[in-house]
């Protein structure tokens, strides 16, 4: 096991720069998720850690060793690919044993390691099967088994669950997290799914257009997003944003679209008169008589909660209620954001304004 340090790493394909200086430090044994929309450079960064892509600038260190010019096989990493990349002409056990056979490991050692990995993943009965004879979830497990057998310093996962159906994805998510808790191997996991990131990570790295937007523990990102992008990316349904001006008089008020007044708390006096974006998560609305008036557009019950889409000052917002209300489309309700849970961002820079 080892730490991973990414220092001012850049990547360009020809003249097109895709990663513009990324710094991430990953502690020994940590589960770090790189998350972001497609094209943000997260997979490229992972492939640079693996050694499948050259590093244009900066350096990557695994443990104490800078690996910029170390070939993949000497980096002591294992990677799980999105399409699993199982060797179709080898049985499950041969797939898992391949790396050790190449190294010329003794047969007893190969057998014991393969059996151990198969035991961990519940693959004992599938060892003689070929990849084609396995289901998606089983293939995913074999791909992980191939990584475990090598007992590497770092596990790299490249969107490993995106080829699975929704139910299996949730199940495998738990399995991977459990596996990490058991093996405690440093893990870098790439996904575009913020729920995967939130549920699995010790530390999330949110990437966007080749830069790191924010690094932090899942709940820190949820509670204190550093900018509008992270605020909108983390959380489902996504945070509501309303444009307007800050007015600091006492605790502060936000003058939203069409003059809607929304409450603020703990706003620095310097923010007075600033053009700002008011962010409030759907789950932080309450119904109150002193709330802002909104007209219901659509109601979507999911069972455990109800999502209400409403028109607030000409903008569509969504509110989530756990309790059941007898709403009807067209009905007027009064939504009150919890001022302590409001996120205020600078309209021009997108940076967070309140603490």
């Amino acid at each position: 096991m080892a730490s991973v340090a990414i220092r001012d790493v850049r990547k360009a394909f020809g003249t097109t720069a895709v990663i513009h200086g990324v710094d991430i430090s990953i502690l020994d044994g940590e589960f770090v998720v790189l998350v972001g929309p497609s094209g943000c450079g997260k997979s490229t960064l992972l492939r640079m850690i693996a050694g499948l892509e050259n590093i244009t600038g900066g350096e990557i260190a695994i443990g104490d060793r800078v690996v910029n010019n170390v070939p993949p096989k000497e980096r002591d990493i294992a990677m799980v690919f999105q399409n699993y990349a199982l060797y179709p002409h080898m049985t499950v056990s041969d797939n898992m044993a391949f790396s050790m056979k190449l190294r010329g490991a003794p047969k007893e050692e190969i057998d014991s390691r393969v059996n151990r990995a198969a035991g961990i993943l519940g693959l004992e009965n599938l060892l003689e099967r070929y990849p084609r004879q396995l289901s998606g979830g089983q293939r995913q497990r074999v791909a992980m088994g191939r990584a475990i057998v090598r007992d590497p310093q770092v596990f790299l996962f490249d969107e490993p669950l995106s080829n699975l159906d929704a139910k299996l994805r949730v199940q495998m998510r738990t399995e991977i997290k459990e596996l990490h808790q058991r093996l405690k191997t440093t893990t870098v996991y790439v996904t575009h799914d913020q729920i995967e990131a939130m549920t699995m990570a010790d530390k999330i790295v949110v990437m966007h257009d080749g830069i790191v937007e924010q690094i932090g523990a899942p709940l820190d990102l949820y509670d204190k997003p550093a900018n509008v992008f992270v605020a909108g990316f983390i959380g489902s349904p996504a945070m509501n944003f309303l444009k307007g001006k800050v007015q600091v008089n006492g605790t502060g008020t936000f003058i939203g679209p069409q003059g809607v007044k929304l409450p603020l708390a703990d706003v620095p006096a310097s923010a007075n008169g600033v053009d700002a974006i008011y962010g409030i998560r759907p789950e932080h609305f309450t119904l109150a008589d002193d709330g802002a008036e909104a007209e219901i557009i659509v109601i979507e019950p999911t069972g455990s909660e109800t999502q209400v889409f409403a028109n607030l000052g000409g903008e569509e917002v969504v509110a989530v209620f756990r309790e059941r209300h007898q709403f009807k489309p067209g009905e007027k309700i009064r939504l009150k954001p919890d001022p302590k849970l409001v996120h205020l961002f600078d309209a021009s820079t997108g940076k967070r304004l309140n603490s």
Partner: protein
Amino acid sequence: MSIAAPTAKPAREIREITAWDRLKVNKNWLGAWFMLPAAAFLILFLAYPLGLGVWLSFTDARLGRDGVFVGVENYIYLWEDSVFWLSVFNTILYTGVASIIKFAIGLYLALLLNENLPFKAIIRAIVLIPFIVPTVLSAIAFWWLFDPQFSIISWSLKQMGLITQNIDFLGDVWNARWSVIFANIWRGVPFVAITLLAGLQTVSPSLYEAATIDGASTWQRFRFITYPLLTPIIAVVMTFSVLFTFTDFQLIWVMTRGGPVNATHLMATLSYQRAIMSGYLGEGAAISTAMIPFLLAAIMVSWFGLQRRKWQQGGDND
């Protein structure tokens, strides 16, 4: 609200289902009809000539004269004919050497073209040229290249001072054999290369990445990933290549007509010479028919080669 009672529909007249009714919806019956045109073509243009050829080999037919059944007389005659055995030897040598070299060069070219080369599209097009040129045309070109007097190869070597006399490419027994084999390789490589390239492109790049991370060297990636995944296509390509080479006629006929002293006679050219040039249809047919066991053997080898690969069977296709 009361539930309405179902209104009784007037009972439809039920006709007895005849065998014809059943046949009309029978998929196998329909399938047989769809296969009929193809079957007619195959019978007319493949099965009939083949059957006629085999029949002729058991007769003493000549050009312009229907033969009578003579049993295996033609074969007994061939058994004692040294020219026939020479042609068998030539055919096996020609097929064996040319196929092995075509495979080696073709695979090499395919691997090369699968890499990211500059001007890849143009190089691929160039590789196909020998395949596109009509065989007779390229044979004539080779005939000139190998001409005893005007050969550009001899001329070049002389200019370089490596030889003093023209090489007699097509006049010497072994020179002639290697020359026609060379021409056949030149013509056959594109087919092997392009088909293997198509096969290589079906191998997912992530397998190579996985193998790289697993610690495989370039050679090991070829040996343990590329080669096994390519074997089904290799088997098909090489079967076809062997069949085409074994039955080759045009190149030889244009370049040497089987000479010198039958040294480059293949079974196909000898058969043509005996049957059409000399008019001994029965004997020529017997030589052609004698090729069938060799061709069947080649097909069997690839068939059983393909059967072995269990990993290809079952499961979905991804």
